């Protein structure tokens, strides 16, 4: 596992080349962002489907547009996560995932959100495991429910831990029983950021979710960016950068590559489009048609965005103050213009 001395030299490459070079059948992979809403590396998942990558072991805190798309073609074999949904208010459950799971086509390993966050933290800092007050009395930690163990997969792949968890009494302070959780270790991490320098230094705006942790927990890191900028520009304000260049392997410039999720200060999420995806997933024929229309049909990611259409992209374009759009219709009524949040206007901070 020792990564010391292995200074990497990131290469700028095309979407196609990055997937071909780093994402292999059966690999353990994690995606950045948060659910289907924030900074999903959608273009990479899209390219993976096109290249027919299969038998993936996805390790993630929750589903996203990426997992939705990979599930749509049955590319995920093992899904180690804590939330199998993807679209929250625009399509909570991944209906097709439930279908694949019930048909015995995939293995689901359940953890919780905090537990997965801690596992990635352990993976990122090079610790073999981490203690966490994961709930005693939850069936998540019922020895009966160890999906990877039941499938006989523990102890073979060196990245799959021998145990799902280990309960232990706190030996230092005597503060009850804690759960030891195994580090999450990935073959590949894929994140989508706002800007990346040509050397690999990366920056996003808005929340960080777990992008930094998954990058450090992975052997190979693909950074997709809205803008490829001179490394020197990012080094003028290094406090705004989150990913140091030396962990990055591939840099892919792909504007709108996070669509239909949002990239704060670039574009908003497309909730109506996500609702259409959700509806399509309810029926295998419709889902196949969706994949043909949106994944297999267009020849490049630019063609996907052209198909989305200029009007929609204008509506999604983020405004420079809030980082999101007030023009996109998310609900049944348009967004009101507001000057100050009422909570602040009423009471200050």
């Amino acid at each position, binding site marked *: 596992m020792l990564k010391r001395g292995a200074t990497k030299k990131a290469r700028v490459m095309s979407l196609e080349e990055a997937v071909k070079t780093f994402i292999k059948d059966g690999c353990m992979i994690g995606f950045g962002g948060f659910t289907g809403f924030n900074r999903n590396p959608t273009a990479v998942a899209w390219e993976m489907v096109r290249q027919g990558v299969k038998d993936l072991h996805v390790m993630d805190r929750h589903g996203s547009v990426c997992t939705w798309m990979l599930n749509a073609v049955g590319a995920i074999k093992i899904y180690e996560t804590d939330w199998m949904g993807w679209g929250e208010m625009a399509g909570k459950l991944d209906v097709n995932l439930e279908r694949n799971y019930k048909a015995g086509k995939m293995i689901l390993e359940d953890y*919780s959100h905090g537990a997965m966050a801690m596992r990635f933290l352990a993976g990122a800092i090079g610790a073999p495991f981490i203690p966490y007050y994961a709930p005693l009395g939850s069936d998540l930690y019922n020895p009966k429910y160890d999906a990877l163990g039941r499938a006989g997969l523990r102890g073979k792949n060196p990245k799959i831990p021998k145990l799902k968890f280990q309960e232990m009494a706190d030996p230092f302070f005597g503060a009850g029983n804690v759960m030891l959780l195994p580090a999450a270790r990935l073959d590949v991490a894929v994140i989508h950021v706002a800007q990346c320098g040509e050397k690999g230094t990366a920056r996003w705006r808005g929340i960080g979710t777990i992008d930094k942790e998954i990058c450090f927990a992975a052997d190979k890191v693909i950074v997709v960016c809205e803008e490829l900028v001179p490394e020197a520009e990012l080094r003028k304000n290094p406090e705004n950068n989150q990913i140091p260049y030396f962990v990055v392997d591939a840099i892919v410039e792909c504007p709108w590559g996070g669509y239909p999720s949002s990239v704060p200060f670039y574009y908003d999420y497309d909730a109506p489009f996500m609702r259409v995806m959700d509806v399509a997933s309810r029926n295998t024929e419709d889902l196949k048609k969706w994949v043909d229309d949106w994944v297999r049909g267009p020849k490049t990611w630019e063609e996907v965005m052209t198909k989305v259409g200029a009007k929609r992209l204008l509506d999604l374009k983020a405004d420079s103050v809030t980082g999101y759009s007030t023009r996109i219709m998310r609900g049944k009524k348009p967004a009101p213009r507001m000057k100050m949040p009422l909570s602040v206007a009423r009471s200050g901070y």
Partner: protein
Amino acid sequence: MALIDKIPDEPAKSGEFILPELMAIQIAHQVRNDDIVFAGTGLPMVGIMTANMLNAPNALLIYEAGICDGKTMHVPMSVCDQRAANMSSSLGGLVDTFGFFLQQGFVSLGFLGGAAIDKYGGVNVTSIGDYWSPAHRFTGSGGNSDIGTLSKRVAYIILQEKRRFLERNEYTTTPGWWCWDFKKNEWRPKKEVWKGTPYADSGPVAVVTNMGVYKFDDKGEIFLETFHPGVTVEQIKENCGFDLNVKNVKGETKPPTYRELFVLREFVDAELIFLPQKVEYPASIQKIING
């Protein structure tokens, strides 16, 4: 005088509000002014945002994806929505929210949803039927089991049906005041199982459903506190899978006030993302709004 202060804080009458509004306001009432709140996507988020604009302006809202004290202008559709990050105190990631804030013990109120609940407030959001070949497979824990056990007080919003209010869950994602011992096959009090940890006294305090509001007694058992307007105690008992304690019922759930509805409708979910429709205000209230 701001417009909001001119709207009377008097209970609205039947027909002037819809059930999701009543539920959202009931959620808001659970929030105290000094709370640090960690809530999930959906009505809990809407409720706590409403509280932040009314009864609990100093409450600090944490959103799962890394947001501390977001001050929203537009309702977020997700806990990672940039709208929730608006004017926040700090932005981080999951290690911040689950580690620095939650496990560290800062969170005083967790507000969550659930697919099914047991009589001790244990929640299932994972699966119905056999775990390995379920009749229904839901999303799974997400932050439910973390927030639901490590927050000081926890409240849930659940759709009330006989198959969702159970003696014991088929799968417990988040344990309540009693935990099922997998080895001995018996209930054990959380205080005992979690003894020595900083969270032994933390657990569910309230449940809001489409039929009533519930609290928990000293033994950690759920009881009905109020029933929503138009619902009878008898109907509630029929929609409960165990023998529900109705001895401490205080009466009908207080309807939302016009001011609460005004904030919820105009400032929280003006885009009608969570609420199915906008009900018209009575003429006297609309007149005040029109100025």
